[in-house]
């Protein structure tokens, strides 16, 4: 079975998707943190459940509902979510309660909502989808694992359509912890990330992006998800891994029109992508982490961009890394890695 992306909903540092102004101009963040532009949640969630939700849940549920609206689908057959860190804000709250009150008098709400699968559960309650409900928590490969599960379930014919997405939030405690191990560049805005790629660290981001995958192509379809692969540490060189992956889809590097790379401005990581310059010398190379920041499920943002490029037949100027002109965009490859450990290849075609 083919797997089509029929709907997308996203809450990102660049605003919400779909929106006609999305990426017309880049939102600049000088604070070192790329926080999402939040929509009016009350337009999507009833007041009673809304008052208990943390930002993580509000972002996740709202982007999932936006996605279903975009796909004109009220109820998915299955729900798959991904998160590297889960509901950190609520977890921090109940752990602080635990220590402050000497393990007594715990407020129930943050505890109940601190589990990683809280977004998937909330979507199930809201949509009435009580079928397969899974949350993948695999650090920087979380979204890819969730997407792979959805892809296999549709490809095998087990489900007709699946809602799949990734959600992550920035919290103060987590930011500070990672600052201590030089995860972040201090005082560098996202517009200057690439010109500051000779030092350690990147810029933190957050966001929630959901996709409605389906066996059936319709007039609103964005792209066809053709194949994907995840690797934990490359067993051999990146070039060979990429060529082998494309060969498994009966393609060569020359067939790829656009390559979206997970470059993040970190001197200890960006050199890994250097080899793609030669391998894809005729392709349009692009990057995306200056738009969404670095977070565990940021590859969902890359999939959004890839699908939108194929549907709109346009590569936004602000993501281009070279000047190669592509007349007819047919094939897009996403290559993302983190710490040279979690590598993923995702290949999409126009439909």
């Amino acid at each position, binding site marked *: 079975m083919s797997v089509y992306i029929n709907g997308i909903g996203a809450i990102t540092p660049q605003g919400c998707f779909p929106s006609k102004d999305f990426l017309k101009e880049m939102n600049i963040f000088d604070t070192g943190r790329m926080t999402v532009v939040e929509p009016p949640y009350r337009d999507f969630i009833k007041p009673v459940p809304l*008052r208990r939700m943390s930002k993580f849940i509000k972002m996740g549920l709202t982007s999932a509902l936006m996605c279903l609206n975009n796909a004109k689908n009220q109820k998915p057959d299955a729900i798959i979510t991904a998160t590297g860190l889960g509901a950190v804000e609520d977890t921090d709250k109940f752990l602080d309660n635990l220590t402050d009150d000497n393990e007594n008098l715990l*407020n*129930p709400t943050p505890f109940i909502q601190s589990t990683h699968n809280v977004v998937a559960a909330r979507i199930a309650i809201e949509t009435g989808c009580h079928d397969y409900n899974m949350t993948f928590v695999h650090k920087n490969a979380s979204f890819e694992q969730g997407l792979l599960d959805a892809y296999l379930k549709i490809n095998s014919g087990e489900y007709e359509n699946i809602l799949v997405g990734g959600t992550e939030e920035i919290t103060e405690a987590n930011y500070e912890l990672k600052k201590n191990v030089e995860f972040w560049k201090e005082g560098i805005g996202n517009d200057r990330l690439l010109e500051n790629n000779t030092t350690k660290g990147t810029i933190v981001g957050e966001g929630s992006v959901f996709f409605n995958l389906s066996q059936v192509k319709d007039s609103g379809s964005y792209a066809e998800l053709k194949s994907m692969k995840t690797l934990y540490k490359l067993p051999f060189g990146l070039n060979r891994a990429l060529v082998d992956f494309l060969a498994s889809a009966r393609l060569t590097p020359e067939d790829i029109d656009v390559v979206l790379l997970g470059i993040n401005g970190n001197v200890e990581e960006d050199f890994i992508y250097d080899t793609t310059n030669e391998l894809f010398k005729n392709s349009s190379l692009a990057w995306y982490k200056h738009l969404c920041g670095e977070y565990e499920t940021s590859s969902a943002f890359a999939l959004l961009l890839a699908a939108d490029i194929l549907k709109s037949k346009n590569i936004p100027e602000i993501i281009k890394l070279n000047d190669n002109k592509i007349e007819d965009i047919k094939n897009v490859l996403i290559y993302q890695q983190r710490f040279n450990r979690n590598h993923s290849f995702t290949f999409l075609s126009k439909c």
Partner: protein
Amino acid sequence: MEDLIKKLKEEILEVLNLEDMDIEDIETEAPLFNDGLGLDSIDALELIVLMEKEYGIKIDDPKKGKDIFYSVKTMADFITKNQ
């Protein structure tokens, strides 16, 4: 008593995240649950924690909870009698 009722209303707004409401929106003698303010079982747990944390009163008999948490007035009466 008036001060206690005002304080209780402020605490209820805060712990239950009733963002759109002011203390004037909570009627002192109106029911907190179901038809009144529309609170639910998770809110009841939050109110039990509030009672113990802020006023040092532990509700030993769960059967009495329904009467104690009927309204802000009944909560204030219970605190006054047991503090």
